[in-house]
């Protein structure tokens, strides 16, 4: 067992490194859908020396608790449940003989790609990686982020935590439920709680529209006559030991509660489905530059971050709606990480002056990637973003240095559905190294 001089300071680990940490070509952090697809793709691209580290004992990440269907329509052309989708990849991981270490928490990554992890089985470990794939996923926003006043009674959970309790642990957290936020996890949990014999009193949404898919609003709320209160919020949580009720009020155009519209709903459980935040503590430790709009790393078209050899994919990069798109993105990160390790050159620059900047135009937020290294473009480039509002009969227009290079009409664009558009590799041949690419929504 290694003794550490000052456990309070992460610097201490750097000052007293483990002697001769093993060298890994591609090290993948996270065994959810992104990490699994990245690992499979890296191995299929010829990487013989890779390692996947996962915090939980089992692989699959959040998919394991998503027992509903709707996964895989793009990747497998069939509708699978979450555990089935995960198993397709876990099976591949095993058949390709990819080394996986579960129960292992990575707590530091350096710019030099030295990865430090801890686990009950192996204690403190360090690895020297030629390339690293960040695939840590995201976390749910909590009650604390919303600052709802009241005591701290039992019965307040994020929707995903409740989903874990019900679907993986086998117990139901309450009998009378109110859901705040109409994100897809909240909608799915409304139906799940009904199926487990609970009552769902209402789904309360701050915005004048649901942030979930229409299909989920219809099949999880309408099917069971669950009230969807748009432009409403929870202003108070009642109860001291256990939730006894919540106060719900209408909000105005500024999203401020309108006094006089309060009503009390008696419930024992309040679930939050109010957004997801990429989990980038390790990215920050490695000095990876983060984008404000996505809360994830700034990446180029190869999904490489601002630190050479560190790649990012899946929900740690930006929050996705569909696991299929996570899989496609992560496979690209895995291939590129394998290529980086093969032609290992730590000096290889990324996001330098020689790149085309990608900028959010009108009506567009959180474009990924944020830069394209034109001379290096190896594949078609996919661009993903969220519209800033609901647009009807609008076009998504791509311009390079002012010149229109692509246009696609949409009958509807909503913030709830990420837009993914693919630009052909050949398109970039006409343009020089620098320049600016913008994507905007136009009437």
């Amino acid at each position, binding site marked *: 067992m290694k003794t550490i001089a000052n456990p309070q300071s992460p610097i201490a680990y750097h000052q007293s490194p483990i002697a001769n940490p093993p060298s890994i070509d591609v090290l993948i952090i996270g065994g959810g859908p992104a990490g699994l697809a990245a690992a499979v793709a890296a191995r299929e691209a010829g990487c013989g020396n890779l390692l996947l580290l996962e915090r939980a004992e089992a692989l699959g990440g959040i998919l394991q608790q998503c027992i509903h269907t709707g996964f895989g329509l793009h990747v497998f052309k069939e509708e699978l449940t979450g555990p*089935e989708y995960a198993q397709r990849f876990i099976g591949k991981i095993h058949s390709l003989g990819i080394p996986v270490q579960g129960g292992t928490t990575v707590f530091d990554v350096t710019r030099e790609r030295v990865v430090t992890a801890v686990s009950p089985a192996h204690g403190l470990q360090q690895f020297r990686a030629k390339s690293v794939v960040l695939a840590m996923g995201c976390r749910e926003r909590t009650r604390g982020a919303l600052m709802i006043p009241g005591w701290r009674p039992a019965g307040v959970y994020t929707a995903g935590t409740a989903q874990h309790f019900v679907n*993986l642990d086998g117990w139901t957290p309450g009998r009378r439920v109110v859901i705040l936020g109409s994100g897809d996890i909240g909608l799915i949990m409304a139906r799940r709680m009904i199926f487990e014999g609970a009552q769902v009193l209402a789904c309360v949404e701050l915005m004048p529209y649901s942030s979930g898919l229409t299909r989920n609003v219809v099949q999880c709320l309408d099917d069971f006559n669950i009230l969807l209160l748009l432009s409403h919020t929870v202003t108070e949580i009642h109860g001291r030991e256990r939730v006894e009720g919540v106060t719900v009020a209408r909000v105005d155009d500024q999203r401020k509660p309108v006094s006089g519209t309060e009503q009390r709903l008696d419930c024992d459980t309040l679930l939050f489905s109010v957004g997801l935040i990429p989990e980038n503590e390790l990215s920050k430790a490695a000095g990876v530059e983060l984008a404000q709009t996505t809360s994830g790393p700034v990446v180029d078209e190869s999904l490489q971050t601002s630190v050479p050899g560190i790649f990012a994919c899946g929900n740690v990069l930006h929050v996705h709606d569909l696991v299929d798109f996570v899989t496609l993105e992560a496979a690209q990160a895995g291939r590129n990480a394998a290529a980086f390790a093969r032609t290992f050159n730590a000096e290889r620059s990324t996001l330098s002056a020689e790149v085309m900047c990608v900028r959010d135009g009108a009506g567009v937020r959180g474009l990924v990637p944020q830069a394209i290294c034109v001379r290096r473009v190896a594949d078609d480039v996919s661009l993903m973003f969220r519209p800033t509002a609901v647009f009807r009969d609008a076009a998504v227009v791509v311009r390079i240095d002012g010149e229109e290079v692509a246009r696609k009409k949409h009958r509807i664009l909503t913030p709830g559905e990420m837009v993914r558009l693919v630009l052909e590799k050949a398109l970039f041949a006409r343009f020089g190294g620098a320049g600016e690419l913008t994507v905007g929504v136009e009437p």
Partner: protein
Amino acid sequence: MSGKTITCIGCPIGCRLNVLTGNGKVESVDGAGCGRGAAYARQECVCPTRMVTTLVRVEGRRAPLSVKTVRPVPKERIFACLDEIHRVRVTPPVGIGDVIVKDVCGTGVDVVATMEVGSDERSQEID
């Protein structure tokens, strides 16, 4: 003839479809922005169906087993199907696709496992 308003799930627009039905047939669909809406209304008003996913208990194990209907079942039978599925207890090992309930509620649809439970996972941790 009777009228009904439903929300199309074909895309995020969520068109409100006004559907007139008579003699178990759809007479007219109003409000659909595209052809898919009319087709959805026909299916949804004559015989609405849903995939059902839920959990069953596993002998000697706290964590449940996730299951699904292999095809959608009629919407009005969802709760009857759930009752029948929830009465089942399974004994490991279970593989993905193993039939857990055959012909649930006489719908002609089987319920299958969507995850694996190894025999070694039996009788670990029961509180």
